[in-house]
């Protein structure tokens, strides 16, 4: 609605603005968001600014402890650990975001259609979800990796394909509950098309819990990636991700502890921040809290 607004009209506060206002007052969530932003910027810019390449070896140096030259030390091949962590962060964060995005797109559409249409369509769609749930998904991912080779894109897809199931279930429940609401009946009696009702009236009202779940899915996807890389199926050297760095670090834990500590720290701090942000979002978007 782009027409110039009459000066006498009072602007309302939407529920989103209200939630945003509440989120900003949650110190922990704001700090977490800032930290995530800093982390993301560092991962994007860091490898460019660093004087070392992520695959640049210095075999003479070998594994050196943190120093003024290599802030977080180097690994067994003399590669700068800070650079490798930041480079690995790119991949880990990207996996988290893209896989979650894939999951979100499939899950929202699938769940919304199932919840809104109901009846036989709902039964079929949700049985498919049940069946996929029942598959041991780690084996599914591992099989994909083994059969199609270690491919970054495939990894995104595989992780997203696993995570959308819960999103679909949440979305279906939300939409089902909302469909009983009178404003949906009102939309029906206005003669609006199913598509408009679904995407204008239902989905925006169902997004709250899903946003919260998204912030909790990103860490779980990142953990999965770390796990897959840890067992040697994901990211392969000389590329790095936090998971693969941790895997490397574990092997030499006793001689060169910094190789485990720093990647581990980067991963844990990010996961903590995401969880705190998720908690903050949940409180901010809670409808009951919004009414007080």
């Amino acid at each position, binding site marked *: 609605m782009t*027409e110039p607004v009459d000066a006498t009209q009072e*602007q309302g506060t*939407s529920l989103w603005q209200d939630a945003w206002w509440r989120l900003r007052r949650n110190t922990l969530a704001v700090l977490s968001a800032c930290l995530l932003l800093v982390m993301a910027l560092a991962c994007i810019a860091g490898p460019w600014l660093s004087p070392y390449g992520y695959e640049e070896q210095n075999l003479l140096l070998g594994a050196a402890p943190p120093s003024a030259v290599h802030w977080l030390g180097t690994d067994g091949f003399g590669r700068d650990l800070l650079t490798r962590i930041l480079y690995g962060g790119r991949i880990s964060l990207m996996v988290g975001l893209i896989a979650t995005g894939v999951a979100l797109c499939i899950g929202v559409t699938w769940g919304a259609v199932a919840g809104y249409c109901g009846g036989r369509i709902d039964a079929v769609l949700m049985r498919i979800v049940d069946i996929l749930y029942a598959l041991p998904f780690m084996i599914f991912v591992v099989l994909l990796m083994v059969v199609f080779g270690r491919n970054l894109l495939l990894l995104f897809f595989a992780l997203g394909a696993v995570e959308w199931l819960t999103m679909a279930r949440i979305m279906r429940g939300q939409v089902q509950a909302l469909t009983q609401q*009178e*404003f949906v009946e009102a*939309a*029906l009696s206005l*003669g609006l098309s199913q598509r408009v009702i679904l995407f204008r*009236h239902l989905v925006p009202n169902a997004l709250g819990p899903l946003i919260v779940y998204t912030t909790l899915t990103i860490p779980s996807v990142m953990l999965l990636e770390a796990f897959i890389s840890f067992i040697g199926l994901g990211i392969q050297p000389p590329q790095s991700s936090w998971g693969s760095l941790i895997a490397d670090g574990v092997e030499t834990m006793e001689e060169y502890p910094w190789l485990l500590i720093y990647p581990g720290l980067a991963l844990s701090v990010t996961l903590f921040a995401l969880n705190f942000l998720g908690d903050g979002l949940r409180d901010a978007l809670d409808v009951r809290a919004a009414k007080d």
Partner: protein
Amino acid sequence: MTLLDVRQLRVSFHTRNGVVQAVDDVSFAVSQGRTLGIVGESGSGKSVCCYALLGLIPMPPGRLDGGQALFDGRNLLTLPPAELRRVRGNEIAMIFQDPMTCLNPFLTVGEQMMEPLLYHRGASRLQARERALALLEEVGIREPQRSIDAYPHQFSGGMRQRVMIAMALIAEPRLLIADEPTTALDVTVQQQILQLIADLRERRNLALIFISHDLGVVSALADDVLVMQRGRAVEQGPATQLFAAPRSDYTRQLLAAIPRGAKTAPSLAQPQALLEVRGLTVEFRSQQGTLRAVDDVSFDLQRGEVLGLVGESGSGKSSLGRSLLGLVRAGGSVRYAGEELLGKSSAQWRPWRRRMQMIFQDPYASLNPRMTIFDTLAEPLLWHGLADRSTVERSVLALMDDVGLARAHVRKYPHEFSGGQRQRIAIGRALATKPEFVVADEPVSALDVTIQKQILELLQQLVARHGLSMLFISHDLAVVRSLCDRVLVLRRGRLVEQAATERLWAAPEADYTRQLLAAAAPAL
């Protein structure tokens, strides 16, 4: 003897939107065998002042700012929590509006009733059971021997409220606080529960505080009345005196807002049927079998007529209204302006949607919370091509004028409005497409009386201004009488009677109609 003496009670709520003085300097007293009625609209603080006595206000955000509440000489407001808990339940008991949410669905009624006797009084199981049985009998539960082992969901609404009352009485309290105990019940059941409460008060010499928004109900029961508005006591005194000669403007306003008497506006019905319904049947299938919500109903609705549809909960009146608009699947025949509507596909329905609209009961649920008023009102206009981008703002503002909303509010969201304003928005949306026929499903039953009156007046004006025909669905006979030209009475899906409004009131033919009318007769 005065049992409870509350003096200068002040309670406030501290939210981020500021401080709300929920109870502001309110004093009242109640003696054994007497009834105090507390009357007020939603948000007047009538419940808060009783909950505060029992320590049932969550703090924060609530805060007790002052006053005292002497119960038998002890100040409830300063009592330590453990002692207050003993008072609560043992000496003061409460019954609430919705018995279902107060009963534990996993325990039988008997077990829940016996609990306080077993744990607080150290009674044996046998004694406790006997006591519970006696009480169930006293509150009028049929076959107490069998009912005592039933679960809450196996009772009807009225029976559940009786169980709640029995539970409240099991510890032999001296003060009973009833918070809107009959609001969720049908009129005929409401009458019975009120009678029961009155009987129990006599028999047990109870002190009773009866909280309600309904002046008629309070006048039937109370000896003294306290009228509250925005946390303040506007007026208090003996009931007979207060109702006969109210001193404050607000009380007068409340009394004037109660719908009573016949319709004053002339009927605008034309001798031409707009809607012809024949053999209408609505069925809901579930695993337990088929429920026939509407059973072979036939009637006509004239152009310009306001047709009332009354019935108790579960009578199928909402299903009937929705089936006319194709919102639930129905059998039979519905001819609208000569055209058969049933059996149309949703695409075929579309041109008809413009001409028939619906107003819903709950103004909190019937508006999309994420759309501004502008978007809500513009949507039907744009969708049906009644306005384009350049003219839509003017149309929306005109619509707001029509339903009495200030233009300045156009960019606000539903949660920023009161219930009455929201209902105006919902009415505006229904009228956006300039329909000829509107189904109004209990449009005022979620609203306070004074607001209810305004909305009824608005509907009446709109009917006249736009030549609307309306099916007005309600459980409230007084409202129907003040608005409708003709009335249909529905019971368990079947049409019991249909007649012109005043003829129905003067000479009801069916027994059921007589019962309804008798139960709804205002005590004032």
